């Protein structure tokens, strides 16, 4: 469907001459402390939250204004050197992992909140601003930024935009794509574009929606305008225990079926609650096979009405125990456990890999049963954390990365979970992105024509494929190999 052949990967190793020329130019553009080349200085950038993959970059650039970013991009473009944008490096799919002979472009210094417009309820921020910092700055106006990834104290809005990040409150308040109004973006050739605006429905194609979740492949975010939401007067959470996960899954469907969209609706299985309880003492029921957290927010009367309705549905659905948060401290404690689930699991295993499939919820029990079988087949433990309201599963596979054999099994196990998500009509990634980690399984989800369409769209922004090459979209040839192995495995 396009004349361009995505087989010829542009990221050739570069020669010594190009390298020294580029470094000299970068040294012109950036103050000395903003350019890192030495091993010790680039080492901290060798991976993101997906620590299983590591790669030293050619250099790390830490510009502190837009002109520098543009100049760095132009220099890399001129020398055909790949660029990987980086926020806080909390990504879980290797999106910010450096590429061979590539430059890491860190936006860490872009930490300014440029303005909060209380009247129109928007904030204009630089890309390196932390997610939580926006809500903190908006708090005096009774406003906040709704998407709340569990990593929100650390992750940046640039990273959130690139991954279309979600959080526990996204069922009711939407994902990043629903809460960003405008982006200022630099393309690889140094062109600066305004995408979207504070006014609704910009003319032209909806490139704003298209670009959110672009995994750093189409441009570099220089600025974002985000929507702020009025803080609800109050919130309460119900914690419900279930004797088996199937019942818990049915309870989720029953809540939605009753016409309720909770502010948050999360599930954790027994291995997850056990790990969490040890770590943060959230008061979780350790006898339950699964617990559900269902939150209501709004005015006190509204919350009381919704909590009563949810209690009734949960009782009807066979909850073995119900606890409603009695005050704000208890509500936060219930959530603290959920928000600390990844680090809690991190304490009981040398390494873990977080899967991110989304499934139609009606297949929950089938998928969890199968994950349990696979856990035994691969001989690796697995805890499940689940954005139950929107069907986004986070199986956490526990392993020891220093053991290549375990590493191999973990990757195999993870791949099977992703394929399972596709089999039941879901997707390999709900919010963490494809990155390096899931690039092979893209071939399970998309046909050769679809993959070619992604490459053609990428070429509309970055024809030389210099931004984050090798990530997010597989080369068609890799898909042919993938399909061969998959069919050899008897799928």
């Amino acid at each position: 469907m396009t004349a361009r052949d995505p087989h010829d990967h542009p990221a050739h190793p570069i020669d010594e001459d190009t390298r020294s020329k580029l470094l000299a130019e970068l040294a012109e553009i950036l103050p000395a402390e903003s350019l890192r080349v030495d091993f010790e200085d680039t080492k901290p950038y060798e991976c993101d939250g997906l620590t299983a993959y590591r790669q030293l970059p050619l250099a790390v650039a830490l510009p502190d204004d837009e002109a520098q970013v543009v100049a760095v991009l132009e220099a890399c473009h001129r020398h055909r050197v790949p660029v990987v944008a980086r926020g806080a490096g909390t990504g879980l799919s290797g999106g910010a992992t450096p590429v061979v002979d590539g430059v890491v472009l860190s936006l860490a210094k872009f930490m300014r909140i440029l303005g909060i417009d209380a009247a129109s309820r928007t904030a204009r921020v630089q890309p390196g601003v932390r997610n939580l910092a926006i809500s903190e700055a908006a708090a005096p106006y009774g406003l906040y930024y709704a998407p709340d990834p569990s990593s929100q104290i650390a992750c940046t809005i640039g990273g959130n935009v690139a991954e279309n990040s979600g959080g526990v409150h996204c069922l009711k308040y939407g994902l990043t794509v629903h809460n960003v109004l405008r982006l200022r973006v630099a393309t690889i050739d140094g062109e600066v574009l305004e995408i979207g605006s504070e006014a609704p429905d910009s003319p032209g194609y909806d490139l704003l929606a298209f670009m959110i979740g672009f995994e750093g492949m189409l441009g570099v975010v220089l600025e974002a305008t985000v929507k702020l939401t009025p803080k609800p007067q109050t919130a309460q959470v119900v914690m419900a225990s279930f004797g088996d996960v199937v019942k818990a899954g049915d309870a989720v469907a029953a809540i939605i079926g009753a016409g309720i969209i909770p502010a948050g609706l999360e599930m954790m299985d027994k291995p997850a609650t056990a790990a969490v309880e040890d770590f943060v003492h959230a008061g979780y029921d350790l006898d339950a096979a699964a617990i559900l957290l269902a939150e209501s927010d709004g005015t006190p009367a509204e919350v009381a009405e919704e909590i009563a309705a949810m209690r009734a549905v949960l009782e009807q659905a066979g909850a073995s125990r119900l606890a409603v948060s009695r005050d704000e401290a208890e509500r936060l404690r219930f959530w603290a456990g959920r928000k600390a689930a990844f680090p809690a699991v991190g304490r009981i295993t040398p390494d873990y890999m977080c899967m991110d499939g989304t499934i139609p919820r009606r297949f929950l029990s089938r998928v969890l049963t199968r994950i349990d079988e696979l856990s035994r087949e691969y001989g690796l433990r697995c805890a499940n954390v689940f954005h139950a309201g929107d069907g986004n599963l986070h199986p956490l596979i526990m392993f020891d990365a220093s053991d290549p054999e375990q590493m191999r099994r973990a990757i195999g196990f993870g791949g099977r979970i992703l394929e399972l998500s596709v089999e039941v009509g879901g997707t390999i990634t709900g919010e963490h992105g494809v990155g390096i980690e899931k690039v092979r399984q893209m071939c399970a989800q998309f046909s050769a024509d679809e993959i070619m369409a992604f490459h053609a769209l990428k070429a509309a922004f970055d024809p030389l494929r210099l931004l984050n090459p090798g990530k997010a979209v597989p080369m068609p040839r890799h898909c042919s190999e993938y399909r061969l192995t998959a069919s050899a495995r008897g799928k």
Partner: protein
Amino acid sequence: MSTSRFIEQIHAASGPLRIRGGGSKDFYGNALAGEVLDTRSHAGIVSYEPTELVITARCGTPLAEIEAALAEKNQMLAFEPPRFGDGATIGGVVAAGLSGPRRAAAGAVRDYVLGVHLLDGAGHLLRFGGQVMKNVAGYDVSRLMAGSLGTLGLILDVSLKVLPKPAAEATLRFAMPQGQAIATINAWGGRPLPLSATAWQDDALTLRLSGARAAVSEAAAALGGERLGDDAAADFWNGLRDHRAAFFAGDAPLWRLALPTATPPLDLPGATLIEWGGGQRWLRTAASAADIRAAAAAAGGHAALFRGGDKSGGAFQPLPPALAALNQRVRRALDPEGVFDSGRR
């Protein structure tokens, strides 16, 4: 089967195709051109799972059929697409990308698009997104289709997120001049009130509250104003949504201005109707396109000639050159031969 007929028509096309459902929005966008590809034979709801909050339907499915199926389960399309007549199809709803009164509170069409099946300019069947709420695998081509006016590819099937209907609604009316109304709705928008729609016209501000019973009755009591009866309220919001209200009658050119919500009243001649908390402003005016577009741009927004008037200068606000070029490259990426390049967008 209709899909194979579409593919034949795509392969046989000698010039650009103009994708058309019920034709209820023929008036919208740039001047019509190209041979018609009629989607109406590809109709029907493919699946509807109320507890998963997802409906999937073929492009030619009448919007009315979808709304009826949802209503039976007490659910709705939260972006309240304008119907503009009986013939509207769901493919046209998505391709037009138009949203109704609930837009400021609930989001636009694109916010509810979860997945599409497309035929591209080569007649290839492509599937993007899916039937799940969260999906970041691959670029978000599905949402890109919203508002593309048939110029990127043929939407065969679309999956949309649906929402429960609110338990309670109330409509309130306040006498208020324009400037004060804009300031007031923005101030109220910053408070945790269950506002689901706003409209200002002729010194009257009308608000709709939607949500839990307690939330609606508390807010209605706190805000005051004159409360409309349920039937009058339904008529009012439907009249606005479907442009059946008196404001929209007659031949004067109808402009749609999209602006940052808190923008003060614009100094343009003609009658104004303001929706979406100040974000969408309708203008009946004979003022020149240049003046209207300049005023909209100066306020940080844009203007489209929505209905009537002279469209020879284009219906939409022109894009800056670099962005226009990028739009073209994106278009060509999906349709290099220009099979769907009818120029409507």
